[in-house]
């Protein structure tokens, strides 16, 4: 299983004017890891659930903002 967010630590100069954001992140949604959707993927149980998630398939759901921020990440 892949992670939906990736983290990196930018170089910090003592002369940076704003307080540094030590850890930055970016989104890597599930579509990046699938070239072609396989048939028969599990679906949300009800049409209402699918609507609320914006997709019929839980494995293609990409949450935003990041529901599990890394502990050392300030924002």
């Amino acid at each position, binding site marked *: 299983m892949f992670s939906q967010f990736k983290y990196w630590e930018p170089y910090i100069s003592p002369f940076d004017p704003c307080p540094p954001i030590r850890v930055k992140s970016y*989104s890597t*949604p*599930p*579509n990046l890891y*699938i*070239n*072609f*959707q396989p048939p028969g993927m599990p679906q949300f149980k009800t049409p209402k659930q699918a*609507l*609320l*998630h*914006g*997709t019929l398939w839980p494995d*293609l*759901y*990409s949450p*935003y*903002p990041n529901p599990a921020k890394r502990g050392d990440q300030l924002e």
Partner: protein
Amino acid sequence: MWYYEKKLQYPVKVRDCNPRLAKYLIEQYGGADGELAAALRYLNQRYTIPDKVVGLLNDIGTEEFAHLEMIATMVYKLTKDATPEQLKEAGLGAHYANHDRALFYQNAAGDPFTATYIQAKGDPIADLYEDIAAEEKARATYQWIINMSDDPELNDSLKFLREREVIHSLRFREAVEILKDERDRKKIF
């Protein structure tokens, strides 16, 4: 031809009268990676792309018009009853002077919509990669707007639209795979 259906694709609720958010959201109305540009890009590409992927471009292009209507609904609700004073404070004074509360196809910086947003190279791979990039850029734009918005109800609709970009991107990647496929090629060895 098209038929209009008197409903939104997804419910749009707005909690706060916050015209500043309308100023940001207009990026997805008349911006380079906005819903209008997307709809026109895909529907225009239909005419010259290989038949196997025309249906997909047709249907995603059609869905984009439903998204355009959702964005318009958000902007409409955020500005409908705002006073000129509120619009001025939200940085929409220049907009009000020119357009009152009318929507205008422009980006968040006020640049009017232009056909140069709609790429059409005629090479199916180049065009589909353009489409994939457009979906990822639209996804990112929704992220930045969600980051600036503290209206949970509005964000709910924006998250739906962001997820749709993810699905569309996947479908365009599948379209590339279909065009790469060699099943139709005559075996010569």
